[in-house]
């Protein structure tokens, strides 16, 4: 990687991504390896995110390291007005790696500039969440046997959804074809579409969520349509039930189709889908553990 910190998926080359995924696979075979013995990780969660924090902390514990940190900024000095820089420098005196989540965008990049120890970005506002992208890609490769030449359909909030934007960047090395399905107000932004054009990535946009598109798809990536994203609540009421996946919509789908979701879901995947073997979102979260073990080894430059 260009830096020893993992701040954003754009910094990862195709080689970097494949190396991390290969290592994640080794951790899936055996998650308990005491290669972080004597090391301390600090998990600084300026914004609560129990799922991500537990996943990272479990990963570091399974590697034999110790974890310190906080899960809510109200219990840290930032509530007394301490700058992020001071907090990061202080923690750098104690820990070997910092895993941080922050409500402000760019916080992880700034942290990586002020300290010499590696920073792992566990989400900075609406900006980046690279470990999510890598675990999505791990799940895609595991279920499809490859990352190359896949058709990926993204559904829901494509405007504000950082996971879909990052997944486009991560997958751009592997010749994907995308279908973007979203209500008019939440369409994929121009910037991401330009990115696709620049990288010769095929994409089509749709407003209707139809079985016709599902049937051409290898990976169906569902996201949440959030009420607070709409300026026009009438529009929200109109579309809120349009982008819901029901089990019967999967009848004609490919055998290899898998359904992913960054979670938490609200109602965009009906519960009758859960028992379908093509539902993969719960296993996807489990893959996060292995991927994060691999990311920790990557930034600390530890051989597996």
């Amino acid at each position: 990687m260009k830096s020893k910190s993992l701040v954003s998926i754009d910094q990862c080359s195709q080689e970097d991504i494949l190396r991390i995924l290969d290592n994640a696979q080794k951790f899936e075979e055996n998650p308990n390896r005491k290669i972080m013995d004597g090391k301390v990780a600090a998990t600084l969660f300026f914004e609560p995110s129990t799922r991500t924090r537990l996943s990272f902390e479990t990963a570091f514990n399974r590697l034999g390291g110790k974890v310190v940190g906080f899960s809510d900024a109200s219990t840290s000095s930032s509530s007394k007005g301490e700058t992020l820089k001071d907090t990061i420098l202080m923690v750098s005196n104690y820990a070997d790696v910092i895993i941080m989540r922050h409500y402000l965008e760019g916080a992880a990049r700034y942290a990586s500039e002020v300290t010499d120890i590696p920073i792992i970005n566990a989400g900075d506002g609406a900006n980046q969440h690279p470990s999510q992208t890598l675990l999505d890609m791990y799940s895609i490769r595991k279920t499809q046997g490859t990352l190359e030449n896949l058709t990926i359909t993204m559904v829901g909030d494509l405007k504000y959804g950082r996971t879909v934007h990052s997944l486009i960047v991560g997958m751009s090395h592997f010749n994907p074809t995308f279908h973007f399905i979203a209500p008019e107000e939440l369409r994929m932004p121009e910037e991401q579409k330009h990115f696709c054009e620049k990288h010769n990535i095929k994409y089509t946009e749709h407003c209707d969520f139809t079985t016709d598109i599902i049937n051409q798809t290898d990976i169906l990536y569902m996201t949440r349509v959030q009420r607070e994203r709409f300026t026009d609540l009438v529009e929200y009421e109109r579309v809120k039930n349009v982008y819901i996946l029901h089990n019967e919509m999967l009848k004609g789908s490919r055998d290899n189709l898998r359904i992913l979701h960054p979670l938490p879901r609200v109602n965009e995947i009906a519960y009758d889908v859960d028992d379908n073997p093509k539902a993969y979102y719960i296993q996807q979260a489990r893959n996060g553990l292995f991927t994060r073990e691999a990311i920790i080894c990557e930034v600390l430059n530890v051989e597996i």
Partner: protein
Amino acid sequence: MSAQKQKELQVAALENGTAIDHIPPSQLFKVASLLGLEKMDNTITIGNNFHSKKMGCKGVIKIAGKFFEEDEINRIALIAPNVILNIIRDYEVVEKKTITLPDELIGLVKCNNPKCITNNEPMLSRFDVVDRATGAIRCRYCERKINKEDIVIK
């Protein structure tokens, strides 16, 4: 004395220094502030709304005894990209320079994303120029792209 010289003398003759010409009138005082003129002890002449064949109306700043470094003067490229720098020695223009937008803008532009770390922490903003043709820039921290017309100078 040439007609051109006489015309310049109407403002103030510079023995040695820099005359910044062709400043858009609306940007004149922003340019003055970006260059930190208020902190200089040099003799400075500021003129505005002079007639210009090229642009109709223009502003001019003359600073005695001052020769700018590249990175110092390129700060104004964002708001006044077409200015001409006349380097004057012994009453003669010895060099005419144009300015270029630098690849990176440090501490110059305010990020227009209120949730960007640069608006919430005592630190310098940093932007990369992503498209020289359109003047679009991108915040290095929150990664938001800002189009030229939305750029806010600090």
